[in-house]
């Protein structure tokens, strides 16, 4: 029994770790979504956290907890001067401005010789243990969960629903939006640092526009209105490709393209039939079954 579990864990350790890392990244996008802001700078923040952590470990020899602290703090600090102007933008304009930020970070790293440009930094010691990832995730979920029902949680919901109306209730909306961007940046930076010390390397192509789209898809598929739903979406979409790995040869499609096809299909089905995400599945099933059955 224990041997079976241990061998399962050895085989899937990387998947287990990535469920947690992706959940943290999904929460970083959710942080701003929770007050209705579509900010997509998380790949940039994750890159800053990952590179800062890698450099501090390799060149400064900092102990790992301090490295993680720095990876949390640095993107958060960067988020303040970024957020002050860009959070004045709404909707797609905010999305475009924050995507541009992520691309500036990525292209800056590609052209920075000190960190080996496009090749990135290799041979980072593996210091991340899986429990560290899940402890971080648990703390993040706890903090976000405790906001619910508090005056701050209600303020975030009010901003999401109608920002000008929220302002007339005395809610300083700009401050709330900036706080959530900073929180999201810190989570992304932490996830980036944990990932870098798990995979031994960081490279600019790990922080592309596609990466932040993945994070957004995790949040949308899980559900963008409940704090733990993005983590569920990340888990679902990280585990699903592993289940499909055996299926791939049978249908004659390579695992890579099959993963993309299935992810696209899942996203489409969720948007069409479960606009509140996978967390609303039990409720929707109840609604459907009660609609079918006669009085």
């Amino acid at each position: 029994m224990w041997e079976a579990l241990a061998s399962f864990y050895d085989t899937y350790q990387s998947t287990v770790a990535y469920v947690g890392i992706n959940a943290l990244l999904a929460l970083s996008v959710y942080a701003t979504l929770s007050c209705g802001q579509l900010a997509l700078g998380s790949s940039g923040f994750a890159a800053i956290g990952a590179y800062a952590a890698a450099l501090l470990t390799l060149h400064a020899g900092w102990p790992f907890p301090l490295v993680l602290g720095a990876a949390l703090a640095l993107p958060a600090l960067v988020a303040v001067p970024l957020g002050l102007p860009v959070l004045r933008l709404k909707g797609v304009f905010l999305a475009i401005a924050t995507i541009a930020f992520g691309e500036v970070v990525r292209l800056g790293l590609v052209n920075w010789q000190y960190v080996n440009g496009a090749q990135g930094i290799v041979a980072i010691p593996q210091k991340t243990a899986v429990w560290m990832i899940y402890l971080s995730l648990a703390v993040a979920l706890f903090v976000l969960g405790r906001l619910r029902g508090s005056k701050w949680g209600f303020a975030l919901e009010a901003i999401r629903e109608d920002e000008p109306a929220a302002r007339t209730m005395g809610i300083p909306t700009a401050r709330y939006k900036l706080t959530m961007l900073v929180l999201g940046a810190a989570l992304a930076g932490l996830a980036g640092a944990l990932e870098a010390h798990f995979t031994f390397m960081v490279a600019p192509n790990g922080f592309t526009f596609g990466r932040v789209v993945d994070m957004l898809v995790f949040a949308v598929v899980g559900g963008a209105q409940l704090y733990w739903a993005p983590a569920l979406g990340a888990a679902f979409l990280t585990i699903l490709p592993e289940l499909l790995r055996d299926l791939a040869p049978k249908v004659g499609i390579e695992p890579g393209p099959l993963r993309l096809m299935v992810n696209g299909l899942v996203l489409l089905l969720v948007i069409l039939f479960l606009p509140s995400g996978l967390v609303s599945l039990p409720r929707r099933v109840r609604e459907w079954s009660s609609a079918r059955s006669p009085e």
Partner: protein
Amino acid sequence: MTIPLLRLEDVHRAFGGVRAVDGARLSVAPGEVHGLIGPNGAGKTSVINLVSGLLVPTAGRILLGEAPIHGLAPHAVAGLGVARTFQSIRLFPDLSARDNVVVGQHLRRRASLAARLLLLPSARAEAQAARDQAAALLARVGLSDRIREHARNLSYGEQRRVEIARALASAPRLLLLDEPTAGMNPVEVRSMAALIRQVAAEGRSVLLVEHNVRLVMQVCDRITVLDFGKVIAEGTPAEVSRDPAVITAYLGDSR
């Protein structure tokens, strides 16, 4: 003579070439229900938006007590004790009626983030108190059986009442009501009139924009009449209803 709670001194607001508010003067005493009437496009809603900080005057001063509030952000104006409703209802549609009112308590809730993160009982009690107060306010506007309903599912008249409960949740000194009875049936209008008088009896001032002239005459202590952004008359309901300028503005010139 007491200091007025709200004073507008020669307030102007132009949108391009349109002078929506053109030198408005107005003062509202503490505990007074002050009507603001005028034909469509007279600038009534603009006055409400100027006072609540959603618009900034092009010229002139707006004072709350002794303090100038023109140019303050809406949340700062709200922090000084000004609450409002909207002509086009702006509830938070996906929140329940009760949670809408809980949001309105934002300025009054004294909660500590540390207490919440440490799972202290005081945080739980504070949240429960907020919900209870919201339920009590909804009962006051006659909606105690609708507290769990999503705002989007409420009828038009119910939504207007939730908006008023939400505005009262901040315990404002000045309540700005922008057409609170639009879309209401006569029974609802009557209970609205009673509610407005009750609010004033608590010492709160009310600035009431309203098209229902009978309601205005019934509940207001004083009335200001706007036409094309200018004040054309000011006085008690009896004075205003006899004023020839008002009759001309509403009914047209007899010549």
